[in-house]
């Protein structure tokens, strides 16, 4: 089963449960009915905003912790020189 299929099936199940609860077809056991009716219509927006903030945080943190490696660059340049000299002495065309 492809990932698309799996995600579609799970999301259809969750969305149908949500709609059933929203239209009071299914009761929620431990919460007061009026409280539930206040909260439920906002749940999708809450999910969207939470996902948005998580994404923003993730991106910001990722860019903040993105490491630079100048040492690797200088080491590489030195190695390139060394390689060129060695190969020239072995009669390989470098530049």
């Amino acid at each position, binding site marked *: 089963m492809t990932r698309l299929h799996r995600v579609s099936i799970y999301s259809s199940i969750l969305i149908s449960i949500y709609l059933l609860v929203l239209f009071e077809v299914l009761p929620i056991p431990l919460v007061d009915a009026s409280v539930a009716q206040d909260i439920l219509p906002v749940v999708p927006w809450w999910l969207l905003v939470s996902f948005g903030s998580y994404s923003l945080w993730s*991106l910001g943190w990722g860019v903040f912790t993105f*490491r630079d*490696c100048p040492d690797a660059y200088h080491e590489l*340049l030195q190695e390139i020189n060394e390689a060129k000299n060695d190969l020239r002495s072995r009669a*390989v*065309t470098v530049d």
Partner: protein
Amino acid sequence: MNPFASTVSLNMQGQYNTPNTHKYSVILPTYNERKNLPIIIWLLAKVFEEHQLAWEVIVVDDASPDGTQEVAIELARVYGEDKILLKPRAGKLGLGTAYIHGLDFCTGDFVIIMDADFSHHPKFIPQFIRLQQAHNLDIVTGTRYRSTSTPYLAEAQPGGVHGWDLKRKLVSRGANFLAATVLNPGVSDLTGSFRLYRLPVLRHIITLTQSKGYVFQMEMMVRARALGYTVGEVPITFVDRIFGESKLGADEVVGYAKGVWQLFKSV
């Protein structure tokens, strides 16, 4: 077949004081790499000889007009015809087919794929090999985004990038976040192409992949995970564009998003 009676094992006995009797093939697809090829092979040879590993490099050249193939022949003379194999092709036919072509000539039991433009440094190959042996992994991939390896490897240094400005880093993180959210691949660097594969694993995955370009690398990793192959990661330093400029246009971004969607639908 008795592994101690394989050609590699018999050839190595008495020559190398090493417990590692595997042979590592490096497939290098090249196009106009006349200047870089000798140096990258020098670096590879140095690393493999230092660690006493049996190795070979398969240069798959797509009819470069700048003389890459002549340089490859010179290098074969210096390092040995059995170590540097030049397997040219008639034209610029793409990366995936280059690997498939190279795989036909592999005599090793592990394959390393990498770029020939110094963005991937061969000094990380021994770390890949050590991690692979310690945990019997099928695939080890290099990651630019992590500071430690998964699973744990004591000698791993933090990864990083050189030559990327803030915008490029942001795009890179954004692309990775998108792919990670949509595909949940279990690796931190999905578009990286510095990898060590077990030969049969690479053969299996490559027959299943259909995309082109860097989506091809993503697809190989996603398919490998879906098939249940074990993957480890080692942090690498990525020195980008030591010569020349990197361009990332809007077309590439759209192409990438399309590629991620294709993978979402098909794997």
